[in-house]
């Protein structure tokens, strides 16, 4: 009887099983297809998926892949909007979803030690029991993992006041492609007087190493909070309020904007009771240690908003009202499926003072390319998510979408902004990156990558080619 030749694939799978155990290795066409996509429209096929459950397993897998020339694509929940987890040539997906222990909660020092597979929402739920929270809360927080949050340096509605993921990572453990385990940063405080490697790892999109542990900064939940809702006739009116609120010296926790199209799709999805004829809405939230301090802010905001002649302005009085408007905001992105089967989402950011011009620019782009574009913005940060609606199966329309995307990015850069506020570069924005950075700067980025991963094994071809 002829002995079947063991293929490369068999050898790979066997090796992974030896390291991680049978339960934690997945292959087969059906499963590989499920790891081929993320929240973008891109696609790829990995050779296998492995779920390491300890740092040692990560080290062993990395060593094996280095020796055999297999690429590694780190992955959390796969909700990124930039193609960061799309499988590359000859790769395995290394998934942190089953490495999800909370190792320590240290309330004295406002720190928690967690593994990368912990889902953002699960941390919030766990911390809420102690009266604490972890401020960065991307809209995807019920799905997205801390590995992914740090990988993309995610922001959330609260980041205008409280900052992004990077500002809440004291330190972390990661494994580089040489198989070494490194800890960078502090545990109970920021401790990098010189090269801040922790901050470089934040937003590294899996290209520098596989992260296995984080020391995250947690905070007591602010005792007082006020939520306001303003509906306007035109998006530019809302934009004016944004500029005026900030000019008045107020730093809201949240300043989120949705235009008419998004108001309507969110209403389709939730039935929260938003007025469908409003041109735009703002969610404005302020928080602080005591309600007394907030009254003045609420008063100022009320005056400022009234100046822009809103259709409607209200201060939420019940928790249910607050929840309803947050629900509408959180579902905004997915809800556009009620209108079109595909969407392309940009992540452009402009200086706050240019906010009204950017709104006008998006409206103009929508006209120029004859496409529906919904506007969703973390207005406080000047961060826009224009959602271009289309049908992927329509080739001609898809071409127009690509042109509109490029026009939006150019508009942001012309206003002194950036093409990516919080969603990362991945594959999607890779071709556009050189528009934003000089060749010398691109060279510096490449050198950083080489310093961490000289053999280009970790998420290769993402962000840029080496």
């Amino acid at each position, binding site marked *: 009887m002829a002995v079947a030749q063991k293929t490369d694939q068999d050898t790979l799978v066997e090796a992974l099983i030896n390291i991680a155990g049978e339960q934690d290795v997945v292959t087969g066409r*059906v*499963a590989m297809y499920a790891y081929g996509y993320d929240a973008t429209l891109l696609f790829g096929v990995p050779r296998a998926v492995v779920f390491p459950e300890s740092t040692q397993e990560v080290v062993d897998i990395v060593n094996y892949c280095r020796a055999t020339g297999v690429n590694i694509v780190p992955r959390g*929940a796969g909700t990124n909007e930039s193609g960061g987890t799309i499988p590359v040539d000859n790769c395995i997906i290394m998934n942190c979803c089953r490495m999800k222990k909370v190792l320590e909660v240290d309330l004295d020092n406002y720190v928690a030690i967690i593994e990368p597979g912990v889902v953002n929402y699960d941390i919030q739920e766990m911390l809420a029991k102690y009266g604490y929270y972890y401020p960065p809360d991307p809209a995807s927080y019920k*799905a997205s993992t801390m590995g992914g949050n740090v990988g993309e340096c995610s922001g959330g509605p609260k980041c205008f006041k409280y900052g992004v993921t990077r500002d809440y990572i004291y330190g972390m453990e990661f494994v580089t492609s040489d198989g070494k385990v490194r800890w960078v940063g502090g545990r109970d405080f920021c401790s990098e007087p010189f090269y801040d490697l922790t901050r470089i790892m934040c937003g590294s999109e899996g290209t520098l190493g596989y992260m296995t542990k984080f020391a995250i900064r947690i905070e007591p939940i602010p005792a007082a909070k006020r939520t306001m809702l303003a509906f306007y006739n035109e998006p530019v009116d809302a934009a004016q309020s944004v500029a005026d609120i900030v000019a008045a010296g107020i730093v809201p926790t949240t300043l989120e904007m949705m235009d008419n199209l998004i108001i309507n799709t969110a209403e389709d999805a939730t039935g929260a009771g938003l007025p469908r004829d409003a041109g735009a809405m703002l969610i404005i939230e302020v928080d602080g240690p005591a309600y007394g301090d907030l009254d003045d802010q609420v008063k100022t905001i009320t005056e400022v908003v009234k100046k822009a002649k809103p259709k409607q302005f209200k201060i939420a009085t019940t928790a249910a009202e607050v929840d309803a408007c947050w629900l509408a905001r959180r579902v905004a992105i997915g809800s556009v*499926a009620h209108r079109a*089967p595909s969407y392309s989402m940009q992540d452009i950011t402009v200086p706050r003072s240019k906010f009204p011009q950017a709104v006008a620019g998006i409206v103009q782009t929508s006209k120029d390319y004859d496409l529906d574009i919904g506007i969703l913005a973390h207005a406080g940060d000047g961060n826009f998510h224009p959602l271009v609606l289309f049908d992927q199966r329509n080739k001609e329309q898809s071409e127009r979408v690509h042109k509109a995307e490029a026009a939006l990015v150019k508009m942001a850069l012309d206003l002194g902004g950036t093409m990516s506020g919080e969603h990362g570069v991945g594959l999607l924005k890779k071709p556009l990156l050189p528009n934003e950075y000089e060749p010398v700067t691109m060279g510096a980025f490449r050198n950083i990558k080489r310093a961490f991963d000289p053999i280009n094994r970790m998420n290769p071809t993402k962000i840029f080619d080496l």
Partner: protein
Amino acid sequence: MGDILAEIYEKLNTCGRCGFCHGACKTYKKDGAEFFVARGRVQLIKALADGKIEDDHDYENVINSCLLCGECAIACPSGVKTHELVLAARRDYKLKKGIRPFLKSLILSSMTKPGRLKFVFNFFDGFGKNAMRRLDGMQFFRGIDMYTMPSSNNPFVAQVPEVVSVSAPKKRVAFFVGCFMNYAFVSSAHSVVKVLTKAGCEVTVPRDQPCCGLPQYVYGDFEAARAQAKKVIATFGKYDTVVTACGSCASMLKKEMVELFHDDPSYLPTVKAFAAKVFEFSELVSTLGIEDKLHSDSPQIVTYHDPCHLVRYLKVTDEPRKLLKSVPRLQYNEMFEANRCCGAAGLVMAFYQELSTKITADKAANIIGSGAETVATSCPACMLKINSGLKLKGSKVPVKHVADVLAEALRD
């Protein structure tokens, strides 16, 4: 016949891969694999429709491990109803390949044949259970507590007269017992009759109790399910009011049965007329005004678990809670995530026992966390599964049907 996947293609295409279902889907929360979440299921069904994958054994696992709990649909901003798409995919799979594996088809066809059904339940009760007992560590076979799984040689229908009459009946109702109650939760079935009669109803328990057809329906065997539906209507169609105390049966008789005949205009009106006469136990009882007949000497703390079919399919949530709260000296404690799936989900508990058992562990922890001394629910399948989950955690909290709690508060 049109291609089913082609029919649902636009719905599959609505999924924007946002991942919002990841937090809602229990099979994903427990396993962590993308092909066990609503997004993965939808994308894979679409991939099959596009000819990019084969409907192999892995694919079968993807669609058959779904709890059909519908939680993802609530979370989905795009309006994707994955449980319905999975059902369509199972139907498609059944038409192309028949029901596999072998055992599943054994169970499904047994359910349509009362004699065989008795055999299956007796297997667990008699030889099966004893054989399991002799093996160390086999107390929990596939996540079900074998020692305490109730099952009766003597089904409920054999223990009661066909008509349980009362003097001057307010209402006449027919009791659709459902196979789980008929064979495994006989005492709960007695409770149902007791509550109904105390409330002034004359209860007819037809000798012929066909399976509602849900197990066949959810695995895509619509032919068998339609045949069952016709049998059910043949027996129960003549009564003015039909009551069932199995949440799954209630959903089948009131909702899915109508969908099953949506393309059969000649029979659809009959089904609709029948469905309109069916009531879930708590729905019916809360209209009968039994509150002032309830007595209780000792205080008790009770919580309630919402069966998927009641909370998300039929949207019955207030009635059972109101009934429980109307029992004197009963303190009602709502548990955390009361409306989330307990992991039973028909045959998922048998074929994906590890996954299902992990899901039940959450439910058990929430029950214990509520401080309740009793957990009540409205579906025998949930009762079985939750009971096992609590035992595994070493808890002595008893699982009761809402009817049991009410029956105890009604003096004989």
